[in-house]
């Protein structure tokens, strides 16, 4: 093939295939995908890539091939440090290799690189076993929460917003409250897990090697204050009420859902409501109220 007749598109598709081929450069050259762009025997690589006096063309391609997975794996490890700690580096590396082949990076930003990792783990979960401790579920939950942390950290927040004040809330008459709907902060997330993964993640991110925790239903409210992601454990009752409010139900209907749930005794609920709303306002879980 003469120098300029091979078009750039073929060359780029060929090179991308070869350097990202999981089995290495030589297998990449042999692959159907690469052969369909540039049909080539391994021994003919020099007709595409030149050798230097110190390196063969294969070695030179190898530099890009090594860097491809190493770089992307490093980014994934930085986004999912607790998952690395739970799975171990080797297993995490193997899963990442699979992940990167199934979800090729397509975005201009590395922030999107790990976006589908929780989904990938879920889809590759081994068939359910009837044992009490489900290791894969634990891993998926870690991945899910670590990804939420990334999204909340760099997504829209409330740092520039005027927050709800006690005055605004006090201006609402008691009889108006059932009709009130709340606008949640854009950085607010409610999550439910089978394991206290938040503690595992915090320990792992501090560089400790945490023990795998006991299974324990864990409800978390996550938000961002002052550009730092905050998470707190909430009760199942709070979780239910907050999730109904997040869905857009008014306060009255949300409380009715909770009352019907058997999660709390009615008298206990009455006492807690005031305390909860006060705390949620201070924590800026919601940033506005509207009366219908």
């Amino acid at each position, binding site marked *: 093939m003469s120098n300029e007749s091979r078009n750039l598109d073929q060359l*780029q598709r060929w090179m*991308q295939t070869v350097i990202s081929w999981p089995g290495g450069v030589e297998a990449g050259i042999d692959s159907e995908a690469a052969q369909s762009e540039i049909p080539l025997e391994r021994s003919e690589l020099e007709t595409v890539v030149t050798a230097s006096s110190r390196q063969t063309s294969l070695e030179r391609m190898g530099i890009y091939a090594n860097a491809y997975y190493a770089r992307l794996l490093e980014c994934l490890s*930085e986004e999912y440090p607790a998952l690395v700690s739970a799975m171990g580096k080797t297993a995490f590396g193997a899963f990442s290799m699979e992940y990167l082949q199934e979800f090729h990076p397509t*975005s*201009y*930003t590395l922030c999107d690189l790990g976006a589908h990792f929780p989904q990938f783990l879920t889809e590759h979960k081994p068939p359910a076993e009837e044992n009490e401790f489900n290791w894969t579920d634990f891993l998926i939950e870690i991945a899910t929460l670590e990804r939420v942390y990334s999204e909340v950290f*760099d997504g829209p927040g409330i740092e520039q917003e005027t927050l709800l004040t006690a005055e605004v809330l006090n201006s609402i008459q008691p009889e108006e409250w059932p009709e009130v709907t709340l606008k949640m902060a854009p950085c607010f997330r409610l999550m439910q897990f089978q394991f206290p993964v938040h503690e595992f993640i915090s320990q792992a991110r501090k560089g400790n090697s945490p023990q795998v925790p006991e299974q324990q239903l864990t409800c978390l409210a996550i938000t961002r204050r002052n*550009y730092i992601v*905050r998470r707190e454990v909430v009760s199942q009752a709070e979780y239910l009420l907050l999730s109904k409010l997040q869905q857009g139900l008014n306060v009255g209907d949300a409380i009715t859902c909770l009352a019907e749930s058997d999660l709390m005794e009615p008298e206990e609920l009455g006492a807690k409501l005031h305390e909860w709303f006060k705390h949620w306002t201070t924590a800026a879980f919601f940033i506005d109220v509207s009366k219908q």
Partner: protein
Amino acid sequence: MLKPRLGHENLGLGVGLRTVHFPHILEHQPEVDWFEIISENFMDSAGRPRHVLEQIADRYPVVMHGVSLSIGSTDPLNREYLKKLKTLAESINARWISDHVCWTGVAGRNTHDLLPIPYNENTLTHLVKRIRIVQDILERPLVLENPSSYLEFQDSTMSESEFVCRMAEEADCGLLLDVNNVYVSSVNHEFDPVKYIEMIPAERVVQCHLAGHTNCGTHLIDTHNGQVIDPVWNLFQLMHQRTGGVATLLEWDADIPPFPVVHAEVLKARKYMDENLPVRNQANLEETVTNPSSAAIPHPASFIVAEVE
């Protein structure tokens, strides 16, 4: 007649902005001339990275350096990306926008690497056309950097320096001359780095990059770690003599030391900025092979880790 630096200001000696240095910079407001940011790390940010950037842009001149434009790719240009680039540039008053003479992916993919293109008439036409489109969208000249590369193509019919010169002239764009990249590629591809620098149209050089690299014995890798070695400083000196001085920036991306160390490294450039000095002899300045067997990985972009309470 072109103005020096295409009319851009010589911003002095700057440092590449990295997240590990955020607290130091905000607290100490160091006397740095300017900062360069990795555009992609801030384009979509609505969190702390963006908040910190705004404070820094209030206090220091900022330049945007991208790694995903993929000007050499045969994929269509990403207009959404270009729009975001322009919006960010306007909001932080970026002095200019740069990226690399490379491609990063094809068929919708992004390898997150700066991949080399063959240097020939066809690819030159391809790049020139795309640079002009990008410049129309951004409404400003694009500044393109010579990348480090680890292979060359049989399809090349001209040297990189010839390609870069013709590209800059024909597309009427600016150049970011990375003297470390020139050095790295000159070792890898066995050309004379001095001739390369001598060939570059001096008045089109808007900015200069300095960095450390890793010597793997048979080749060099542009790892952006460690100090700038003497042969690279010599190339810098030559570049300085030819251009009369341009905004100069140190990139440090792996094993990043505390901010004052990085800053001190770029300030060493002052020693090489006396135009009357003769270019120093390179022959006795051999660099050491630091990492012959290591898997040194170039890192064009970095991932920003979330801060959680």
